[in-house]
């Protein structure tokens, strides 16, 4: 008869907390970098320069069709095997997650950019707004509003996907949990606790993003 002992696991809550902080740091760094990279790729995807377009398309298709785990292995083991770089597991984790989610974000942002109606830009121009003003006051708020929900889902995916970097010993929540489970031989209890923590994280992340949308972003008529 197996008796659940959550107390045994919760004694290690400081380790879990440290892992949680790593998960948060990793997720936030990834969101930041992938948003920048994703925007660049999205702009290349709609650019008229054939070379940039081809590169961006290849990038998006590659990272959307290869599992995150394989990307992590390539970044961590592959690069050191070619002896170009030697990444620590932390750097490799951030890079792999960023490369992966930038591909998905690029497609979301591209969709947002394409949704700006030509007439809207023309009418802004006829009001005498400068190019920068159009960009700043018409295009950006509009695109942000359109892509917000999809990017929010992607942010949750980043949090959930961050658990995968535990395979290269990135010291985040899942890895911390695996260590505790192995020392105490309490695998089931540990993963129940991890499940609850991840659920809390992703549900609160999506709620925060929804509140921000409701409070700060003005609705536009196309939704």
């Amino acid at each position, binding site marked *: 008869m*197996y008796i659940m002992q959550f107390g045994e696991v919760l004694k290690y809550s400081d380790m879990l907390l440290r892992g949680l902080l790593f998960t948060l740091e990793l997720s936030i760094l990834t969101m930041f970098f992938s948003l920048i990279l994703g925007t660049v790729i999205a702009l290349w995807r709609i650019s008229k320069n054939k070379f940039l377009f081809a590169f961006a398309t290849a990038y998006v*298709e*590659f990272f*959307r*069709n*290869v*599992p*995150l*785990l*394989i*990307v992590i*292995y*390539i970044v961590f*083991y*592959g690069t*050191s*095997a*070619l002896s170009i770089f030697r990444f620590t597991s932390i750097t490799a984790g951030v890079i792999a997650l960023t490369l992966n989610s930038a591909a998905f974000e690029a497609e979301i942002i591209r969709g947002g950019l394409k949704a700006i109606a030509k007439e809207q830009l023309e009418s802004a121009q006829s009001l005498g707004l400068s190019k920068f003003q159009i960009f700043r006051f018409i295009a950006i708020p509009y695109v942000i509003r359109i892509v917000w929900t999809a990017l929010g889902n992607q942010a*949750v995916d980043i949090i*959930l*996907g961050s*658990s*995968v970097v*535990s*395979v290269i010993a990135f010291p985040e929540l*899942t890895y911390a949990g695996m260590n505790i489970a192995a020392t105490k031989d309490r*695998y*089931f209890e540990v*993963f*129940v606790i*991890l*499940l609850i923590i*991840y*659920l809390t994280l*992703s*549900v609160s992340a*999506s709620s925060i993003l929804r509140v921000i949308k409701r409070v700060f972003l003005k609705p536009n008529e196309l939704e």
Partner: protein
Amino acid sequence: MTWMRVLLLLRGAVVALEVCTLGIILGCVLGFCLSLMRLSKIKTLNMLSLIYVELFRDSPLLIQLFLIFYGLPILFKVQTSALVVATIAMTLNSSAYIAEIFKSAIGGIMKGQWDASYSLGLSHLQSLRYVILPQAFRIAIPPLINQFVSMLKSSSLASIIGFVEITKLATMIRSRTFTTFDVLGVTAAIYFVMCYGLSRLGSYLEKRLEIGT
């Protein structure tokens, strides 16, 4: 990287495809029930389905795999293989997403269709069975293919609990031969061909099916 090893990886890819096919079939059955629960007027069924869907969509698949892997022997006293664990995890996880696909497909059928079938004297169940569902299934095919693609990618995680499919074979070959870059490159290429091909098929079908609606 010898041809033998490439063949071995391809064999692993077939295993991954098999598990995902099984997973999506079972996931469709479960997901369909969940979507009907979501659309039903009984509050309890509604809540249960909602909780199920959110539980599986808001937690990492890796954690779900571990929970099933360690939970089955403890909770149900069954010793199973990694294959069974992977299939169960794929089924449970995908059914949450498939429930949403079916829900929006059924919900996407115009209200006029319901009214029309009622006016023909069909009961609620008959309307669902003969009018709504055939159309909803058609709408659901492209997103189901996308779901299959994302399942195929995430099935690589099952290698972590020791399920021998393409990713596991890749790590085994890697640690034995130290030809890291070749092995991972070939593995990525195989995944790419499978997933890219399937998603192209998905968008092709999406365009074809749009004509009819």
